[in-house]
């Protein structure tokens, strides 16, 4: 049983999805989905533990040997990302039952869980597999599920958004497919480890460069790297809040994982003579500044945090661009931390939507009086987003600054710090209106019932994430250790 953990990680949610369809009762489907998610969380925890103690796990699907058969390969990096995805996926799912009650029709709620699990299975599959074509397949599984999930949104614009996301996502995936094809024609193998071994012989050919560009662009579309980020704000804004929380915390993280995998494991970090590093740093900084500046003016808070996500992705890209072990560790830490803070923020917004039905800035005026716990969560997660000490956000920013200083890139360090100030601004304006703003009298008139605190079904998962934000900001051993090991492993492989 233990030997089969790598495939079980993917199979459990994948098989649970159709089962949810058969159950067809929202509440039972939810319980069942939670059950499956918890199991996959346990599996990922076991996998991380196993990898840390006994090294890389290689699992041959169907017993076929590696270059011919499909290999599932769990190293430190994949185990770390698997844990993040399954943990956040589970916590958000816990909140889903309450969270979607007002946003999705009762008869479609079972379908929601089906898609949710499929999406999760796809994301986990991307991370677990060692076969690059398999990556494409899982990417499409998760993406297709995502398009449908986004289309669940109540606003009719959700449909248009889902359509646009589908177009962009498919173009991205096709680019990736093209790159895979070129790599295959170059090396004659699809196993990532095998490609990495054979690539150095042909790495100077134009085919290799073309493949690299195709794949990087494809992944960049998926992870919403500036200037290919335009699909993300709409998607996050119009998708049901629970879906936004899930996507923000996991989907982009997996795309980052894929980028790291391609850049460090397959092509090697010195591929192309370091030009790409500079490009990454430049794009990352642009992401941070452009997206943060745009975020400040957003009248819709969901959209505000969507832009903030683009900015945070920028930070992760900067870490990759710095290209040292420390920089990579910063990226990996931010991967984990950003999942925690954005998960918390979007769940808090889900709570607001649950009670008010909107995330317009005007609705937040004076909301702290009615929803103290939700708003307190926004404050803490917001502090984490800024990077205030004792929250996780501080740890990853600290590492990114340190990494850029260590590489002599002190302007980058300075810009990272200045970028955080923009976050201060948009978080503060939100907190200010929630705590000091005057509630719009029309919203809270005597005729309508007073706004109440969000139900426990949402508050508990929300506060789990918020407390995790604080806990891992103080007791940093788990993420620090795992990310350091993963970063060192990747840098070792790249040299």
């Amino acid at each position, binding site marked *: 049983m233990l030997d089969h953990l790598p495939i079980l990680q993917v199979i459990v949610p994948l098989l649970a999805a159709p089962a949810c369809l058969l159950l067809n009762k929202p509440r039972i489907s939810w319980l069942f989905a939670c059950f499956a998610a918890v199991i996959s969380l346990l599996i990922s925890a076991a996998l991380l533990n196993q990898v840390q103690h006994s090294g890389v796990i290689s699992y041959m699907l169907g017993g076929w040997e590696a270059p011919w058969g499909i290999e599932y390969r769990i190293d430190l990096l994949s185990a770390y990302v698997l844990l993040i995805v399954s943990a956040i996926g589970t916590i958000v799912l816990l909140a889903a039952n309450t969270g979607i009650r007002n946003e999705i029709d009762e008869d479609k709620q079972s379908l929601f869980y089906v898609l949710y699990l499929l999406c999760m299975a796809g994301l986990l599959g991307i991370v677990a597999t060692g076969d690059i074509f398999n990556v494409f397949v899982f990417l499409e599984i998760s993406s297709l599920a995502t398009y449908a999930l986004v289309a669940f949104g109540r606003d009719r614009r959700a449909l248009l958004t889902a359509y646009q996301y589908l177009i962009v996502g498919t173009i991205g995936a096709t680019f990736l497919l093209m790159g895979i094809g070129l790599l295959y024609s170059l090396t004659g193998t699809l196993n990532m480890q095998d490609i990495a071994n054979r690539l150095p012989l042909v790495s100077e050919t134009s085919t290799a460069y073309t493949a690299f560009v195709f794949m990087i662009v494809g992944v960049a579309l998926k992870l919403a790297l500036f200037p290919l980020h335009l699909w993300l704000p709409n998607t996050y804004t119009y998708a049901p809040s629970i879906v936004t929380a899930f996507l923000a915390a996991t989907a982009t993280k997996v795309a980052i994982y894929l980028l790291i995998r391609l850049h460090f494991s397959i092509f090697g970090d010195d591929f192309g003579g370091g030009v790409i590093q500079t490009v990454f740093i430049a794009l990352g900084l642009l992401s941070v500044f452009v997206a943060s500046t745009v975020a400040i003016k957003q009248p819709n808070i969901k959209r505000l945090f969507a832009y903030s996500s683009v900015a945070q992705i920028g930070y992760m890209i900067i870490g990759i661009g710095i290209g040292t072990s420390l920089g990579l560790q910063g990226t990996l830490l931010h991967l984990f931390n950003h999942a925690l803070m954005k998960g918390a923020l979007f769940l808090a917004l889900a709570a607001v939507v649950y009670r008010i039905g909107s995330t317009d800035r005007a609705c937040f005026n004076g909301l702290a009086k009615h929803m103290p716990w939700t708003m307190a969560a926004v404050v803490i997660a917001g502090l984490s987003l*800024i990077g*205030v*000490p*004792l929250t996780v956000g501080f*740890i990853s920013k*600290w590492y990114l*600054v*340190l990494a850029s*200083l260590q590489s002599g890139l*002190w302007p980058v*360090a300075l810009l990272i*710090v200045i970028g955080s*100030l923009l976050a*201060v601004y948009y978080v*503060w304006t939100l907190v*200010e209106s929630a705590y*000091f703003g005057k509630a719009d009298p029309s919203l809270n008139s005597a005729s309508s019932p007073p706004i109440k605190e969000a139900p426990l079904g949402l508050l508990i998962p929300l506060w789990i994430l918020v407390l995790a934000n604080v806990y891992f*900001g*103080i*007791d*940093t051993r788990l993420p*620090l250790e795992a990310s350091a090991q993963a970063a060192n492993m990747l840098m070792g492989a790249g040299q």
Partner: protein
Amino acid sequence: MNLSAEMLIQLIILLPLAAAAGVLVMHRHPNIREAISLTIAVSVFILVYTLYQQIISGQTAMVTWTTILPGLSISFKTEALSVLFALIASFLWIVTTLYAIGYMRSHEEQNQTRFYTFFAISIAAVMAIAFSENLFTLFIFYEVLTLATYPLVTHAGTEKAQQGGRTYLRILLGTSIVFFLPALIGTWAIAGNLSFTVGGVFADDTPSLWLAVLLVMFVFGIGKAAMMPFHRWLPAAMVAPTPVSALLHAVAVVKAGVFTLMKTVVFIFGMDNVGELITTDFLLYLAAFTILASSLIAMRQDNLKARLAYSTISQLAYISLGVLLATEAGLIGSSMHIAMHAFGKITLFFCAGAILVVSHKTEISQMAGLGRKMPITMIAFFIASLSIIGLPPTGGSWSKYYLLLGTLETEHWVLMAVLMISSLLNIAYLLPIPIRGFFPGKQATSQAGDAPEKIQEAPLPALIAIIITTLGCLVLFFYPQPLFELAKMVGVAS
């Protein structure tokens, strides 16, 4: 007592938190609630005093709570300046609690439990600031202090209180995140170490330009020191109930600011370094400007608390100036002024509160002739004013003397002139209040009516508090020795 010093430090920080919890639990029984506050305040003071005896005999101790990243930990350590600050803050906590009991009850304030709870939490933060072993720990509790005092500032809950609270948070959080945190990261990046070290943490070959920039960032970042142009939070915070203004905005919060500045200058930069930086002169003159400008503004304030607030800004700038002089005399002067100003200013605030409670007067122009009604309060006000001005026989004269000595040593004649002029301004804006209180002049008397007024002083606990701090001002003139010894130990390698 047989407690180890490590134990003591932790108890000093945790006991106020326990007081906060106790207050919350006992919220239905005001008497027990206040008894808890008072008892714990007294025991914290005793503990700090024990530490004081240890530090005098040369013992130091250190505790680490948790290490967040390698080299970045939350730790506490005893050191002369820490003990000095903790001693004052804990002593005045007792007195203020006493005062608050009288004030809050006779003023019939709402939400008294919330008040005492956050009050105790603030004290815990102050103690943690005092004993911080490194800049990182200090920064964290510096922010905690800001957040914990916010509910106290907005205690009244009125529109004006909200407004004041917003300014308060905005400036304090803003400066600390925009300047303080980046400066802290910069320090870490350059020096690789944030522990308070005698002589500073920077290597000798660090480019002085970087240090100069960092110093400016620290001075602006430590918004609690109220250096202009980031001083506006202090007058804004005066919407708080008087005991809060008294302890937090004359002692704990503002002194935490200058304390942080001193710690940074002495133990992060090192005195020798600071003296040589190109920006030091700029900052010195900024401090001088702050002294004069806020004194001038204070003269124009008719609201007593606002006048005291601007006076505080000016006195804080004295301390900053003394630190930035980077000489021994300046440092001693600043350290002692932390204590002297604390006693003087808290007395003044107490008096202001007493006047408010008894006669409901907030404007200075209404206070003529008040000395007949509240003689003790007005005498206390007079003595405390002398201490702020720096005239014998009050403690303030010692610290001002050393500050003057500091400017003399470094041959900063302009600064010396500023200090002297400012003292004159102090006289001009403080002394008229008690003088007109006793000798209102003809016009005011006729307004007040001819009937001799009865003596009606503040409630007894408040009155006792006033008398204690007033005596403190006098005692510190005759026995400044303990303070002086502590001040002399600051920055000297043990």
